């Protein structure tokens, strides 16, 4: 009997602390930042830690963030900056769980985000804001009227994220293998016919493959009509019918006759490096230069875009709703959109800067112009002259669904 009582007591003793923990209240917010002045925010951020979460698969970017950016923030603002590699899906899953559990102080301060993910995160209250109007560098360096400052995949930003870097769809091949560079959809079809079975694109919903297909849709159907289109499947399907027709026409000349597509852009990158396909594509407009510098791509690689232009978008930095250090995150974001760090991002990572050229001082302009981008790429001016806007975020999954039904293996 005694023993049984003891067991009962132990069992209760074990469960009790758990239950007690569950009802414990999280600490309240330190201060309201939305009305604070910039000096106040910088002061509050001094001596704090900032954790930036985002995709960790690019060693150059990891080193830039943990090196150049971290040093800059330490020196100028006394902030300890750390970059944590985590896929955006996992970040959003983490934030969703934290929201569900009623957590008020999480671990994520800043997030690298854009497009659909931004749209869903903002809709679900996973982001803090609006905050961008409080950043001095927004006014000093960023074009306020640029559609990409106001909208992300046609969805209003409302001050919930600040631009980080610009991406643009480019295509590239090895001029020693195939010297021709298709200038439009028709030439691309000819190119596929000439290199039967050696061209393909990543299966949607891969980010790059999806953008490439949207680009071909723009080629066949124009881009303007999509900017205001509702995400109604039947209507979208009707609008992109000529493009679907074209994609099906393409299939017999593609790798594995278009019955299957490489699972993601990573797989296509490897196939291109191995010589299994003759053409590749990327959202990083200067990725060829990095590849040549790394030795993963031959020196004869060349970048090209369609004459009508290719899709460009911006990726952004946002702040988590439960960020433990919102002031620090704001200071870090402000620094990253400034001229100094954007210049290092351009020179070290070869990423298109988000700064407005007309807002730069002559000195800064000269520094940007002096950057050696490396081999096999198109100059910034040519890319920007061939830049088309993204579609609304909610059209993207609809098109991916239609592609899977109407194009694969047809």
């Amino acid at each position: 009997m005694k023993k049984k009582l003891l067991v009962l007591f132990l069992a209760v003793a074990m469960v009790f602390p758990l239950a007690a923990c569950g009802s414990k209240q999280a600490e309240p917010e330190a201060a309201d930042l939305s009305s604070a002045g910039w000096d106040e925010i910088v002061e509050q951020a001094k001596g704090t830690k900032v954790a930036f979460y985002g995709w960790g698969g690019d060693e150059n970017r990891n080193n830039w963030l943990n090196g150049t950016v971290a040093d800059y923030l330490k020196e100028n603002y006394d902030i300890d900056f750390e970059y944590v590699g985590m896929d955006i899906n996992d970040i959003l899953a983490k934030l969703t769980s934290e929201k569900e559990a009623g957590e008020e102080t999480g671990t994520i301060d800043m997030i690298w985000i854009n497009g659909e993910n931004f749209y869903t995160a903002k809709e679900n209250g996973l982001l803090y804001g609006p905050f961008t109007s409080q950043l001095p560098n927004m006014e000093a360096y960023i074009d306020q009227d640029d559609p990409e400052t106001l909208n992300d995949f046609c969805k209003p930003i409302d001050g919930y994220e600040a631009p980080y870097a610009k991406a643009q769809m480019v295509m590239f091949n090895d001029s020693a293998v195939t010297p021709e560079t298709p200038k439009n959809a028709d030439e691309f079809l000819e190119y596929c016919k000439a290199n039967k079975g050696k061209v393909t694109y990543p299966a949607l919903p891969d980010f790059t493959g999806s953008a490439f297909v949207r680009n071909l849709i723009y080629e066949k159907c124009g881009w303007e009509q999509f900017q205001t289109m509702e995400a109604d499947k039947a209507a979208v399907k009707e609008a992109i019918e000529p493009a679907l027709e074209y994609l099906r026409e393409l299939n017999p000349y593609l790798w594995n006759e278009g019955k299957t597509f490489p699972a993601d852009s990573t797989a296509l990158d490897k196939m291109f490096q191995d010589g299994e396909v003759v053409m590749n594509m990327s959202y990083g407009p200067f990725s060829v230069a990095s590849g040549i510098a790394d030795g993963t791509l031959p020196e004869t690689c060349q970048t090209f875009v369609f004459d009508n232009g290719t899709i460009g978008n911006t990726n952004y930095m946002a702040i988590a709703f439960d960020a433990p250090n919102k002031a620090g995150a704001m200071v870090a974001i402000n620094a990253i959109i400034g001229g100094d760090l954007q210049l290092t991002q351009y020179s070290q990572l070869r990423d298109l800067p988000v700064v407005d050229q007309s807002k730069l001082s002559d000195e800064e302009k000269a520094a940007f112009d002096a950057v050696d981008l490396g081999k096999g790429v198109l100059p910034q001016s040519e890319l920007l002259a061939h830049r088309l806007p993204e579609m609304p975020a909610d059209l993207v999954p609809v098109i991916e669904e239609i592609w899977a039904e109407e194009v694969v293996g047809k």
Partner: protein
Amino acid sequence: MKDRRAMNTVLLITAIIIFLPVIVILVWTVTARWPWPGLLPESYTLRTLEELLFGSNQLTEILLSSIMLATLVAVIGTVIAMMTARATEIYRIRGRQAVGIAALLPLLVPGTVFAMGIQVSLIRMHLNDTIAGVVLVHLVAALPYCVTIMMDVTAAVGDSLEEQAAVLGAGPFRSFIDASLPGIMPGVLSSASMAYIISYSQYFTTLLAGGGRIKTLALVLVPYIQSGDRALASIYSTVFVGSALIVFFLLEAAIHRIMRKGR
């Protein structure tokens, strides 16, 4: 004689199947380009070594934290498994079969689902993003294996030797250490190694329970595999496998010494 030759052939084939890919990975660690159909890489690079040793991922720190975490899981997991096995195999407790089945239950739930659910519980207990939280979650993943292993050896060894020791006047603790433990030691070893390797290779659970704060080798390695950087993925894989092997050899050597001393 014939049997032995057949045996050797099988061994040789198995060895080739295991070692050939390992050799390919070793070559990839310093490969820049290796296009088809070349038998050897077209160009080599030292950028991977540079990144590994001087990059922004502090290798020693990450290695130490991975090894500490896995060792903790191995020790705690094996002790829990040892006690569970004694409870179900030696003492005739009612419902012990249910305990045995319950110990296997975590295997039935897919890892991702489990990780996302447990994260909410961890946040409620304020254990999210802590080492304790990650250890707990790893334990859940490792315990089914540990418990199964320990149940088998405990059932085989039984408690007859322990009873003898007790008859001869040894206390319960001493009779367990001196009489039963040497017998179940092989099980303890395999349970600990199993828990170690499971904890060492956890990716998604560590990511969610640790919130990116608790850094392990797997957390650094997997993004490079996913991003398709084969050279970097290879060099981190080599460190991953190599460090696990070294720890195993050390563990085994230590246990052998203890066992010999005991005798």
